């Protein structure tokens, strides 16, 4: 209770956290903020940690499924004229792989980690709009199941993850496969937008008192900027997929040049989303790296200002690169030059980040545990991918290697290097916080080396295959092409990479049961999530921390100062000002509700029905309206009165 700063007391007097202390306060808050027992209670949970865990587990399930499709493709391509799968199945496999990895894993995993960690890191008790958070998860799950069940029923999409028209239009893709792709986009992007709004509001208005803008952890800055990118990028692809459904279902001609439409409009809309998407996947990776490095270098991050600046600059610049995906569509060279310029200039903020991280390690006393190994893997792989990206920003080179395996190699280096390596490190880093147990360090090292070696053996040869002219998305090739040895090498690497992931999943499963007990802060880290128990109590903190430093746990080793005065009778959190994080008011936080799940089911049924008949939109409206009415109907709880 030392240095306690009382909060405004404008509500009627009731039981406050100043009236209780120790276990009595903890137990009372845990009861108020907890998720009940029983199926309905669990389905009604609005706890950001419960939903975050579900998001993370679901995203990893989709990563595993996407990995399986990759293994089947690699086995098919291991030797010339192989007959493991036919062209139709292969078309579905690469579409499912890309769509799953980009929409069901790449975007959601960053948001999933944010849902769990951001409220803890900013020192609040729940995410903003917790019921919307629950709704977003159910919508995401529905979209993923919709895509994969369609695939199992042999109506999986087969038009590539970016589903260009006219291939995906009514003339060349009869049946429902392209519709499944288009509507899966609507599901997952709706979910992504909801989470982005929650993160933005949480960061702006729910930070602990004293957490001024320049004390926000870099992890939070990265996911805050990421959320803005999501808000501005995702509507473009939702528009593209909706236009596509309209063309396919009700006969509009938006993408049909013969009737006054424009096929290139689809590409513009898609890539206006698609390039920022790369940064939507990468920025969470930077968040993980910026959290892991100071802890294991045992010093504060070098260049905080430069790193925040890099994040914001990357966020803006990511919207000025999309046309470099369209260099072969016959654009004027002057127009293409603008996008070459921005594509090369984005290397400045990204390079700045890398130098700041290396400087932190250079000046620190690094402890080489598994999370830091994955960060070092990230440096190597991501920088290699960035260098081939600079090559692809050049129109003449891009024109030569467009749609070849060179591009496949490049974007796997960027995406796996920029997201998956830091993510695996992040799971090792925060697993003790999620579960209360440490993961095995020995298996972690096996995991790292198998993934690192397997990845490079799988993907580096693809650069050469591409330069030799091998196009992507071919289900087989003739022996006379001379690609066989390189493809066999890539397949061998892919199997090693896959075995690395099996070790990871084994480590997770074994550590859940038998891992060493972690304690609240096993790594001696400095940010606020490590002030909470492992795993955190439902209320996160018994009293809201008062922040005086960027690494509060390092600055206040004797014990964090706290702010007091919040209710111990109902769910309440403190709202603070945007720049200075000064306490402004107390706000009730929503209680568990089953209505977000009901609303998600109604929305899901409407979305799925609408690919069969436009009338489904009309039939779906009453259930959606009923669910939303139930959701918002006053229930006489403190939440309604605050």
């Amino acid at each position: 209770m030392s240095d306690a700063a009382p909060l405004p007391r404008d509500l009627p007097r009731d039981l406050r956290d100043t009236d209780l202390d120790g276990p009595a306060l903890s137990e009372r808050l845990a009861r108020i903020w907890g998720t009940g027992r029983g199926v309905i209670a669990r389905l009604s949970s609005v706890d950001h940690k419960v939903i975050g865990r579900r998001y993370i587990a679901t995203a990893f399930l989709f990563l595993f499924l996407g990995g399986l499709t990759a293994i089947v493709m690699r086995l098919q391509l291991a030797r010339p004229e192989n007959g493991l799968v036919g062209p139709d199945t292969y078309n579905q496999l690469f579409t499912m792989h890309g769509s799953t990895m980009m929409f069901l894993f790449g975007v959601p995993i960053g948001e999933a980690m944010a849902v769990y960690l951001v409220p803890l890191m900013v020192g609040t008790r729940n995410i903003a709009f917790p019921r919307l958070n629950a709704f977003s998860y159910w919508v995401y799950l529905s979209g993923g199941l919709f895509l994969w069940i369609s695939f199992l029923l042999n109506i999986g999409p087969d038009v590539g993850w970016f589903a260009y028209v006219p291939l995906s239009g009514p003339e060349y893709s009869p049946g429902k496969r392209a519709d499944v792709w288009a509507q899966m986009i609507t599901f997952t992007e709706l979910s992504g937008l909801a989470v982005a709004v929650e993160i933005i509001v949480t960061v702006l208005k729910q930070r602990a008192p004293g957490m001024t803008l320049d004390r926000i952890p870099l992890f939070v800055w990265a996911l805050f900027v990421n959320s803005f990118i999501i808000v501005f990028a995702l509507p473009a692809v939702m528009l593209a997929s909706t236009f596509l459904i309209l063309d396919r279902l009700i006969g509009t001609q938006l993408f049909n040049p013969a009737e006054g439409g424009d096929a290139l409009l689809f590409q513009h809309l898609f890539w206006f989303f698609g390039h920022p998407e790369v940064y939507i996947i990468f920025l969470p990776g930077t968040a993980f790296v910026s959290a892991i490095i100071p802890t294991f270098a045992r010093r504060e991050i070098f260049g905080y200002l430069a790193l925040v600046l890099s994040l914001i600059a990357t966020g803006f610049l990511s919207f000025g690169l999309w046309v470099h995906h369209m260099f072969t569509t016959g654009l004027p060279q002057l127009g293409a030059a603008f996008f070459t310029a921005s594509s090369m200039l984005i290397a400045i903020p990204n390079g700045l980040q890398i130098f700041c991280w290396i400087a932190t390690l250079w000046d620190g006393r690094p402890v080489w545990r598994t999370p830091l190994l994955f960060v070092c893997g990230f440096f190597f792989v991501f920088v290699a991918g960035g260098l081939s990206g600079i090559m692809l920003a050049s129109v003449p080179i891009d024109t030569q290697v467009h749609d070849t395996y060179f591009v496949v190699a490049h974007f796997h280096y960027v995406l796996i290097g920029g997201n998956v390596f830091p993510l695996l490190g992040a799971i090792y880093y925060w697993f003790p916080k999620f579960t209360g147990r440490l993961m095995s360090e020995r298996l972690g090292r096996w995991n790292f080396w198998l993934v690192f070696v397997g990845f490079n053996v799988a993907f580096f040869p693809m650069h050469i295959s591409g330069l030799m002219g091998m196009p992507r998305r071919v289900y087989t090739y003739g022996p006379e092409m001379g690609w066989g040895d390189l493809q066999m090498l890539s397949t061998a690497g892919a199997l090693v990479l896959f075995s690395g992931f099996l070790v990871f999943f084994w480590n997770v499963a074994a550590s859940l049961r038998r891992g060493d007990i972690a304690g609240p802060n096993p790594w001696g880290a400095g940010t606020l999530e490590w002030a909470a128990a492992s795993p955190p109590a439902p209320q996160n903190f018994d009293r809201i921390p008062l922040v005086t430093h960027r690494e509060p746990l390092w600055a206040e080793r004797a014990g964090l100062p706290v702010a007091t005065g919040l209710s111990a009778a109902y769910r309440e959190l403190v709202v603070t000002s945007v720049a200075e994080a000064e306490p402004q008011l107390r706000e009730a936080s929503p209680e568990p509700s089953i209505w977000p799940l009901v609303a998600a089911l109604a929305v899901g049924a409407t979305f799925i029905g609408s690919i069969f008949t436009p009338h489904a939109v009309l039939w779906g409206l009453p259930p959606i309206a009923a669910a939303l009415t139930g959701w918002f109907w006053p229930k006489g709880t403190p939440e309604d009165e605050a």
Partner: protein
Amino acid sequence: MRRLLVRGWPSAGLYAGPVAWLASTQGNYALVSWDCAHRLPAVTALAALLILVSLFGGLLSWRSYRRPPEAATVPGQRAGSLDAPDGGRPHRLVAAMGVLLALLFALAIMVHGAAGLVFSGCER
């Protein structure tokens, strides 16, 4: 206006730089065919104008950044390095980011404009 120039505006560069760059990206992309048809360097001219917009935003941020700490707006705000980990100077951080972002985006716009000196807009 004079008061604004004297006191500065911490976040001005944060808005002006990216907005000018977005205008350059979209405006100059649309001007390519016009450049070709009229044989006039509209792309370069627009880029020059938008560089000034970006730099003006950076100037306002700089004025704010340079204000003495005692005249700053946040109680308890102190002078010192922005990298000092105790923080507590949010407006100064925003002003510094404003200056640097304005410079970065002025550079990006300059490169856009330089393309207009090389190409006429008619090349395919």
